[in-house]
């Protein structure tokens, strides 16, 4: 099977700091790959390269086997790569409809087609089974879970093939966290590939098929979740050492 996403030998320097040092990761359709590491290990920088917010100094990105050049968020979106940022990246003063379509508004001529956008947003949000009473209130007035749903609807409406989720449950309560987990499983079942960044090992062990651990801008290693324990992973994150009995999981297809 061809990987959905292959990032190969990605390098990126910020001034004197090697933020990404020869990083390679991949992702298959219907798979969740957890990206782990300390703050500053390079996880967020890596996904910003994939989502078009940063440009790598060198390295290759292939989407569905085709080499692509991703220079802007639009380039990434055109490849079906959608990102849900840790800070949610919502404009708090705008309503849910405006946020779902931000940057990709439906228009009739030059006029925003609010009706169509409201209908489509409603349909997408209903699919996520989270109750949002009014789509026309500023999202600042919504709960963390509702806001997260709006952020996810953005990605789903535009038919993401690859979803990047940066700490999707960090700001949520237990119930809302459970909802987001269900949602990730549902998307996975639909064949969407998901990069999941999280500090919560329970989340990651519950959801991810493979784990890629980063430290100081380098990949420590990639393992199958079922091969490793929490302690093994902590050893990778803190000590940068691979567990002894884990199969290497960075090249072949998962469970192929």
């Amino acid at each position: 099977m061809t990987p959905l996403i292959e990032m190969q030998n990605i390098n990126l320097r910020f001034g004197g700091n090697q933020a990404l040092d020869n990083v390679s990761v991949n992702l298959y359709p219907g798979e969740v790959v957890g990206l782990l590491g300390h703050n500053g290990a390079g996880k967020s920088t890596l996904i910003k390269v994939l989502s078009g917010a940063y440009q790598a100094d060198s390295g290759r990105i292939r989407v569905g086997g085709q080499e692509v050049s991703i220079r802007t968020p639009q380039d990434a979106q055109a490849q079906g790569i959608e990102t849900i940022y840790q800070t949610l990246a919502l404009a708090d003063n705008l309503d849910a409809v405006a946020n779902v379509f931000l940057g990709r508004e439906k228009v009739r001529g030059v006029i925003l087609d609010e009706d169509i956008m409201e209908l489509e947003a409603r349909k997408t949000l209903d699919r996520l089974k989270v109750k949002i009473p009014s789509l026309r209130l500023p999202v600042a007035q919504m709960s963390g879970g509702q806001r997260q749903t709006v952020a996810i609807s953005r990605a789903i409406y535009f038919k993401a093939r690859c979803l990047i989720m940066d700490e999707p449950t960090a700001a949520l309560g237990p119930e809302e966290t459970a909802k987001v987990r269900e949602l990730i499983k549902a998307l996975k079942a639909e064949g969407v590939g998901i990069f999941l960044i999280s500090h919560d090992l329970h989340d990651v062990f519950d959801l991810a098929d493979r784990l890629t651990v980063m430290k100081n801008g380098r990949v420590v290693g990639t393992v199958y979740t079922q091969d490793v324990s929490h302690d093994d992973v902590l050893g990778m994150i803190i000590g940068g050492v691979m567990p002894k009995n884990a199969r290497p999981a960075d090249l072949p297809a998962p469970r192929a």
Partner: protein
Amino acid sequence: MQMQSTSRARTNLVQSLGVDGRILTMLVVLAVVWAVFQLFTLGQPGQFLSPQNLWNLSVQTAVVGIMVGGMVMVIVTRQIDLSVGSILGFTGMIMALIQTVPPLGWGGHWLLALLAGLVLGALIGAFQGYWVAYWGVPAFVVTLAGLLIFRNATFIVASGRTIGPLDDNFKVLGGGLNGSIGEFWTWVVGLVVMALIIYQALSNRSRRLKNGLPVRPVWAEGLVTGTLLALVLAFVLVMNAFPYPGTNTPRGMPVPVLITIGVLFLLNWVALNTRFGRYVFAIGGNPEAALLAGINVKRMLVAVFALMGMLAALAGAVQAARLNFVTNSMGNLLELDVIAAAVIGGTALAGGSGTIVGAALGALLMSSLRSGMVLMGLPTEWQNVVLGLVLLAAVIWNTVYLRSRR
């Protein structure tokens, strides 16, 4: 308990009207202020609510009214423009120089003067916006520099002289003796606007119903549309009730007021119905989100500053046309009036929040206060103290309002 239930009933009422609560409050405040001034000036020949005073009031609101919509957009994007008074003065002076007969001016056509002024204003705005957007220089400092530069450039280009008189055609922009559109055209404009309001309300409603989207109740729709129509009708009647001196010929709507209304309509439409407007608010709400959504934030900021500059130039043309002679100090400190009107109209300096309609009402409230206090014979110093207090009260109220919605 009693209090709570009344206040809930009131919110429900406002919600079903589908009108911003702050705009309603502004209208109520404006009505109260007008009523109080009318009471205080009852015995005088020029009462506050006389057609003559209201007509003058509309002309006095025009210059700030033209600029205030642009300032709302600037502030909504989390920026500020302190240079608008100086841009107004500088572009006004250039327009005067181009059209005034030699040797004082260059003897060009008035239309050329107007176009050159508008382009110059937009370029100055874009220039300032460039430093803000692409170099990250704070707008406060960039436009403070602009305030200094263009105020004094005004002196330099005219060698300190007062330039005029201006072309008679150009002076129409100022609303002077030939600067009104007359009774007939005032009716035409009024009726067209009323027809547009009705068409807009009906077509919006039927489209939303067709798409199965919620609409406001019929009585609320009727009340809002009816109120708007009544306001337009009242405006037309007042404008047509003030005759030329020594005649019975009504003046009708002054040209500067027509320009102001046109500009505000257009900006309000842009703010609410186009991508440009949507992006202005998105940038103000969360610049990073806007960037990640693929919005070209830098280009947007330059465009917003350019728009502000062009509106300042348009206001400069109106002001110059009204005065007939352009002095070095034209538009001095006017940036404060424009910013104050925007803020009184509910624009939050933190960005992301504000309405063109609110700001227009803010401008009208400010000029009403000034005009009323002049009629009452209050000294200028006291007028300014009162305006300052009103500004302070408006900001405090706006802060409380925004906090209560968090």
